[in-house]
């Protein structure tokens, strides 16, 4: 498991890092640090750091460094600043930060990216410190302006309090701007928290309930033209030639130009562009993927299970342990390719001029968007402004930004501001996907119900190399094109020998105490583009691991919860979550004909256990109720955590019950919500969430609620029908 750090000079070095989420460490030595921060130009404002800007009218702005894709990060990170600045979170004006090194993600080596359930964990200390330091300098300024000893001052919700009088922070910003801002102000003790741990309505709720929240698709620039792309039927296809005569004669059409992924049709109106796109004839050069169907992928993976593979983890003596175990089981599991299908299809507005450019898009990396525009427009990074919008869903999809490249190329070719939008069909058929996986687990239990051995293998493609390949040009915009091409090409060949990508096997073996472990990986990649999909490797490994645990409990003659508790002595936090969920499960009274299933999983440093109440009627699996117990350390916004668990359960349920993409001659067969269905309200379960009280540092909640749901449902289906389902999506025989 390793990551690559790319310095500006193009040197590569590997360093160890855990799998999960984006794993690119990026050091911009001496670059960008002196670039002006993308703050609002407000008269007489006080902006002592990249995050906080206070104006004399006492409006406090927070520049949110992470991207809001629904996970509640604008509410969560504002709460952190609010706590130690002592301003009510609801009083803030929250701005979505543009691209700048100061907005880097501390958990991604400073790269400006959002993912991996990192935001709260990574910024917990940093943003509280930023708030505390600004409060301290405001107090210093107030002491000076009011002629009162600092020790006689306190604060309350954006005001300095002295005796009976309250003075808005804004009164002191002029003086504060002349003082040195401290760097190490003591933070509040948890016992004094006012906002952390309390519930208040989400800060983005009003704009998102009135149609006023701005997403990338909503950006409207004067003179803007609309573009759609005619795409190859098979991923990686290249344009050999095209004929656009018919399209160019259609109403409103101004240009038809080649872009990296196909042919872009540009028109005055979006609808005109879509109609003309149907008239473009393209001759494609298609890659080897054109010969691949789902049946072939499965057969190849099945054959690959016989290979030894590369070692991902090893401990003890697996062969001897298997021979000595009282009970041994072996099983194979399958998980298909999946699309993210965020409700807002991919889009970007890009306007390239002679020496500068602007990009507006909702991305999981505004710095990547900036870099891609610079690279494809031939500009210096500092001359590209990246304007972040809300994301209409992310789930990992908005870290791969061909949409930005396409809009940049179209803007360069036409000299127009370009609004480029993918159709839903583009999204399902021409995107980047959760990899398909075949997994095999062979495990043994001793006479005391203790796991003795766990031998696991995963076959499939690796996510990290693919994502790096797509993102690299965005990180290296200042390099000559030839060098970037060389690095990307080099990366490509380097990754052919990639041993084990941490994200490929994460979650397959780590949770339970086992003295003898062997985990291996066989890479099989047919060329389907891959990327991070909500909870990444855990989205399939938890299914295999937790169905296996249910089967092992049965052969060991133990209750599934007792069996798990019996094998979790070294994981007290996960064990506690399992214990609490087990107690709730024991008290649940399923309706007649319903059955309960249990699963637990640790991912992104957060522990979750879920119980699903399921019935099977006319061969259809129906999930009525889900109990979710989560320990994510200190609960910053309990209601946001609850919402993320509810949402993760339902997102995961769509994958468990329906999610399936088929390859047919290299093309994705599905195209829209009729054949790639989503769980709808009438199919959604009630979700009850229990948050374990904790004083440990907070960990992420955007993804960890997802992995346990598919195995919890599968284990309940087994109790209801005696059918042990080992393939996703779950389909009864």
């Amino acid at each position, binding site marked *: 498991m390793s990551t690559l750090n790319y310095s500006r000079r193009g040197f590569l070095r590997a360093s160890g890092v855990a799998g999960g989420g984006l794993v690119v460490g990026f050091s911009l030595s001496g670059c960008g640090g002196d670039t002006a921060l993308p703050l609002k130009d407000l008269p007489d404002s006080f902006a002592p750091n990249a995050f906080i800007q206070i104006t004399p009218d006492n409006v406090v702005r927070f520049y949110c460094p992470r991207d809001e*894709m*629904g*996970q*509640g990060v604008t509410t969560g990170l504002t709460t952190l600043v609010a706590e130690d600045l002592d301003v009510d979170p609801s009083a803030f004006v929250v701005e979505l930060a543009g691209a700048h090194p100061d907005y880097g993600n501390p958990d991604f080596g400073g790269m400006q990216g959002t993912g991996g359930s990192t935001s709260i964990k990574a910024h917990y200390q940093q943003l509280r410190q930023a708030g505390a330091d600004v409060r301290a300098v405001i107090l210093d300024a107030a002491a000076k302006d009011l002629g009162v000893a600092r020790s006689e001052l306190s604060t309350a919700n954006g005001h300095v309090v002295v005796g009976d009088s309250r003075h808005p922070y804004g009164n002191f910003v002029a003086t504060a701007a002349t003082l040195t801002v401290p760097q190490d102000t003591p933070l509040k003790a948890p016992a004094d928290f006012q906002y952390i741990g309390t519930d208040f*309505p*989400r800060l983005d*709720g*009003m*704009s*998102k*309930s*009135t*149609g*006023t*929240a*701005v*997403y990338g*698709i*909503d950006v*409207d620039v004067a003179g803007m033209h*609309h573009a759609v792309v005619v795409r190859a039927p098979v991923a990686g296809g290249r344009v050999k030639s095209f004929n656009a005569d018919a399209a160019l004669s259609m109403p409103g059409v101004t240009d038809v130009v080649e872009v990296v992924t196909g042919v872009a049709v540009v028109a005055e*109106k*979006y*609808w*005109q562009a879509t109609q003309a796109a149907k008239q473009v004839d393209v001759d494609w050069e298609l890659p080897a993927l054109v010969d691949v169907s789902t049946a072939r992928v499965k057969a190849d993976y099945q054959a690959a299970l016989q290979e030894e593979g590369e070692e991902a983890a090893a401990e003890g003596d697996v062969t001897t342990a298997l021979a000595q175990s009282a009970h041994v089981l072996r099983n194979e599991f399958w998980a298909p390719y999946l699309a993210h*299908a*965020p*409700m*807002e*299809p991919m889009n970007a507005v890009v306007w390239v001029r002679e020496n500068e450019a602007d990009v507006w898009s909702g991305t999981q990396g505004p710095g990547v968007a900036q870099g891609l525009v610079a690279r494809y427009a031939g500009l210096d990074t500092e001359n590209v402004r990246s304007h972040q919008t*809300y*994301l*209409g*869903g*992310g*789930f990992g999809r908005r870290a791969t930004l061909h949409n930005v490249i396409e809009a940049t190329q179209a803007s360069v070719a036409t000299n127009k501001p370009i609004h480029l*939008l993918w*159709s*839903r*069909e583009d999204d399902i058929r021409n995107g980047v996907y959760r990899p398909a996986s075949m997994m095999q687990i062979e495990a043994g239990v001793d006479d005391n119900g203790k796991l003795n051995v766990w031998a696991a293998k995963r076959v499939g493609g690796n996510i990290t190399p693919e994502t790096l390949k797509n993102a690299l040009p965005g990180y290296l915009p200042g390099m000559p094109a030839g060098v970037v091409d060389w690095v990307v090409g080099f990366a490509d060949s380097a990754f052919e020998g990639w041993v084990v990508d941490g994200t490929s096997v994460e979650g397959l073996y780590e949770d339970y105490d086992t003295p003898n472990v062997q985990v291996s990986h066989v890479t099989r990649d047919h060329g389907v583009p891959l990327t991070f999909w909500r909870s990444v490797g855990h989205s399939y490994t938890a299914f295999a691991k937790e169905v296996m645990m249910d089967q092992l409990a049965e052969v060991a003659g133990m209750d599934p919860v007792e069996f798990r508790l019996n094998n979790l002595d070294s994981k007290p936090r996960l064990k506690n979550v399992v214990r609490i969920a087990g107690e709730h499960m024991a008290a649940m009274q399923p309706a007649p004909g319903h059955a309960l299933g249990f699963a637990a999983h640790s991912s992104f440093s957060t522990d979750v256990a879920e119980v699903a109440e399921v019935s099977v009627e006319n061969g259809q699996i129906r999930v009525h109720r889900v109990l979710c117990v989560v320990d994510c350390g200190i609960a910053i916004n309990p*209601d*946001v955590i609850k*919402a993320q668990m*509810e*949402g*993760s*359960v*339902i*997102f995961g349920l769509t994958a468990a019950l329906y999610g399936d993409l088929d390859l047919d001659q290299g093309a994705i067969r599905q195209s*829209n*919500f*009729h054949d790639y269905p*989503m*769980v*709808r*309200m*009438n199919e*959604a379960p*009630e*979700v009850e969430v229990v948050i374990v009280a904790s004083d440990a540092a907070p960990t992420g909640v955007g993804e960890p609620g997802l992995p346990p749901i598919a195995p919890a449902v599968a284990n309940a289906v087994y109790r209801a029908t005696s059918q042990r389902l080992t393939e996703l999506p779950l389909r009864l025989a």
Partner: protein
Amino acid sequence: MIEFELNGRPVTTDEDPATPLLWAVRDTFKLKGSKYGCGAGLCGACTMHVDGQAVRTCVLPISAVAGKSVTTIEGLGTPDDLHPLQSAWVEYSVPQCGYCQSGQIMSAAALLATNAAPSEQDVDAAMAGNICRCGCYPRIKQAILAVADSNTVSDLATEVSS
């Protein structure tokens, strides 16, 4: 030339009569609150009211609304003058990414306008055409039922327009 009423104001457009209402509203009349999600009437993100009925406007040509009254999320309520459903959406922190919520609210408003006291099953049936990828369904249902239970319900029979 097609004439219709948009949020209480008369509007005209001379664009292709086959243009879906969604794109005329977004690109020509510059109201961006209604969203594109599927282009096939499958997800409900584009839902508006046409003469009070919830309609999927990504597949409704503007020729079909000639002489009719169209209401979008912007006409239902504003941050300063919220429809009761919008207040409930904020209070219950319904939205996550928020992209589908204009369509969800328009479908819910059309339901309550004709059925002031819906059962859970009524809500499920009326809302089944609206997909939320973030999985906000439990809160959407909770917010709708809370509004139905409240005394604001008598205000809902009349279509709100600005």
